[in-house]
């Protein structure tokens, strides 16, 4: 079957992808324990059901043999046994949950902002990126919030998930076991681009994370402003709403707007120049271009002056 062929190409067991964080194995143990108990009872129930249907099928002229219509001992038995089993499940789930929710003190801190429909990860040295880069040899704590609606960060391989709630901070943590690249999804419905709100977790080999971080942060020093601007629009999630090839997405395309005259929903109009772009980035709600929704989040406090300048030069370069 089609399904089986594709399954053969996938990694991990039938039910769960490979466990790649320090707590994932514990979560899987709880999963497989419950799976075992559930399968046992399911098979028991279905087997009895089929057995009774066969043994006691209706035969013309034969009345049911019959049996008692209550039995307290039986009732107590099939109450107590499940109670014991669910207490064990509860306990296993609960202790592992405390581990998932209690981050180790020496964890490496990364801040996460969710916005429609991209992720912004900020590192301690001020660098921001749309992908989550982490070292392999230490636990990582994410402190998260949202710019707009609720999002949820989910890394299946690490078995972690936590909502990003506007107006408050939530945290989660994990300790990756292997270097590699993993999927990261948004799992709280957040509108049009919910299923595009995907990213990657890049787990660096020992020692390589620091060098990556240093080089990545030095963007403006190592690139021309136009190149840096291009990179910054990618990292800050601008490109989820703005294209660079002239097609309109949620927001207008960047291509060719520099120097154009735009009219706004309040009736005024203005030429797209450095100041206008700057204002669009810092106070996007001030002027809403005709034909678009007020959907853009503010980047006030998130982009440095030099970075905004680089973005302006980049937009100007898109003729």
């Amino acid at each position, binding site marked *: 079957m089609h399904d089986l062929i*594709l399954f053969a190409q996938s990694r991990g067991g039938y039910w769960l992808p490979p466990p790649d964080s320090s707590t994932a194995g514990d979560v899987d143990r709880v999963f497989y324990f*419950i799976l075992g108990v559930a399968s046992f009872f399911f098979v028991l129930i279905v087997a009895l059901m089929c057995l009774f249907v066969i043994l006691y099928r209706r035969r013309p002229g034969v009345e049911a043999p019959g049996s008692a219509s209550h039995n307290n001992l039986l009732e107590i038995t099939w*109450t107590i046994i499940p109670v014991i089993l669910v207490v064990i*499940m509860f306990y296993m789930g609960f202790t*592992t*949950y405390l581990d998932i929710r209690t981050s180790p003190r020496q964890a490496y801190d990364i801040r996460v902002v969710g916005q429609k429909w991209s992720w912004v990860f900020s590192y301690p040295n001020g660098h921001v990126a749309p992908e989550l880069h982490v070292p392999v040899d230490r636990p990582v704590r994410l402190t998260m919030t949202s710019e707009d609606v*609720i999002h949820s960060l989910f890394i299946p391989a690490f078995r*972690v*998930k936590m909502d990003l709630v506007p107006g408050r901070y939530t945290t989660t943590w994990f300790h990756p076991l292997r270097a590699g690249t993993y999927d990261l999804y948004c*799992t709280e419905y957040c509108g049009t681009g919910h299923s595009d709100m995907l990213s990657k977790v890049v787990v660096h080999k020992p020692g390589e994370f620091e060098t990556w971080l240093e080089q990545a942060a030095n963007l403006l020093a190592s690139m021309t402003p136009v190149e840096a601007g291009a990179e910054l629009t990618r990292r800050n999630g601008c490109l989820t709403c703005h294209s660079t090839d002239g097609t309109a997405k949620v927001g207008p395309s960047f291509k060719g707007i520099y120097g154009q005259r735009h009219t706004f929903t309040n009736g005024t109009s203005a030429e797209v120049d450095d100041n206008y772009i700057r204002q669009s980035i810092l106070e996007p709600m001030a002027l809403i271009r005709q034909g678009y929704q007020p959907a853009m989040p503010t980047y006030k406090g998130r982009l440095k002056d030099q970075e905004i300048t680089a973005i302006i030069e980049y937009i100007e370069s898109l003729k």
Partner: protein
Amino acid sequence: MSDLLTEPRPAAAPSMDNYLTHARGFWSWALTLDHKRIGVMYLVSIVASFFLGGLFAELIRTELIGPGRTIMGKDMYNQVFTLHGAVMVFLFIIPGIPAALGNFVLPIMLGAKDVAFPRLNLASYYLWIVGAVFFVFVLVLGGLDTGWTFYTPYSTTTDTRVVLAVTGAFILGFSSIFTGLNFIATIHMLRPPGMTWFRLPLFLWALYATALIQVLATPVLGITLFLVGVERLLGLGIFDPKLGGDPVLFQHFFWFYSHPAVYIMILPGMGIISEVISVFSRKHIFGYKFIAISSIAIALLGFLVWGHHMFTSGQSKLASVIFSALTFSVSIPSAIKVFNWLATMYKGSIALLTPMLYALTFIFLFGIGGLTGLFLGALATDVHLHDTYFIVAHFHYVMVGGTLSAFLAGIHYWWPKITGRMYSEFWGRIGALMVFVGFNLTFFPQFALGSRGMPRRYYDYGEMLGEHPEFYGYHFLSTLGSYLLGIALFLVMIYLIASLFNGHRAVANPWGGATLEWQCSSPPPHDNFPVQPHVGDPYAVRNFQYDPDVGGYVRVAQTAKPEHPLHPSAH
């Protein structure tokens, strides 16, 4: 299977006056106070809603048959799954069993002439219609894209028709409250002499427990949706953090209703299963009191577990731990019911007629739905599975596998009573088999999709295929299954409708039930019982024996003498 089991003999023409012939013309229906007619009007309306919701479901599945765009864009997809969920939940499954089947059989099973407040009953139906009209407006006036859950601040900021939709749901809430009030009052006040609490059929215990939830929980939904509406219109700042509100508060309010509502959906179904299993096994139900009390226990405990929808919302660890523990406590009464049903079948005389096939389907599918709930009650595993397709599979196993199977069991079981006609047993069985296969094919692959990481409410999974090539195959299978399921349900509708025209006339008691509705003719007369019926043990099915001359079951003499002609239809 012998003729005796599959082909109940045609009965003589029904007694002249029954509730269908009692009065004629549009107004005799539109203004009727007869619980049976109101039940039938509800039945037609909710079945129509079900097919609308089903159409949306097929659109969702068709879009997901392969990666990328198949038939619609992203915004359209979001509206389609929202309307699917909202229609199925608010218009179909919550009113489904209580308001349609419950309305029809509750007073008859009780031995009463009608519900306690017939006018309130009719009002409840019209409120349902008004609520449904609001939903239709939402559909034609620009849609809704919040999901049926209306989570803030998404719902307070999107530019789709939220106010219209929450008004509709608010009104539907009142419809549900009225039904609940009526059922509670009826069961308390209108029991005839001899109908003690522990002689109530288990379906009535289930409806009673359901009604408690409808009356106590639905007002909370009303207020919550009202606040969402007001927040949108006036910028009040209850839920939107930009205005000083708290979005997680909305989730607490919402689930305070919507978790108990899950039991509004499933409890009546469990009630039907208790009736059907006993009758088609020809055995007294096993553990009557345990099943009865477990319904009440589920209803009450169900109020205390709402936080299990919020384990990853940022609620405190302590809250999560308490909610997890309470969640497990609800699983016990459900398990008790299943074991009692099995014990009822033990040493019975089991006839695999269509209602029984659906009852067995129920045990199978609800078994999977309930047992997968254990993964979600356990904190560590819920963190991984929450908001993935595992959840989608779990709740469809409970709501479709459970409630819809029970609904189909009930429809087939009471069809002769409601319409006075027998449907085709052959097509009934084919339909049940197709529903079973189609359902599992649709939803079983979704467990694996979800546990492997596929989030729910996703329009596309093309980009995920790099790490998860298997997603494609699972989605493909699921969509194929949904087509089979769709065809099966159509088939069911067609042979049921056909039976109205060419079905055999039904006798009073074609299956051998001992509850009171089988003591009046099929269809029942306008005021149910010409003479006060004989109230006995509702599960003394052995007191009824098949009589080939009648073509159905009649009470045998060994028990107390019947006080009225038992089979008016046979005369």
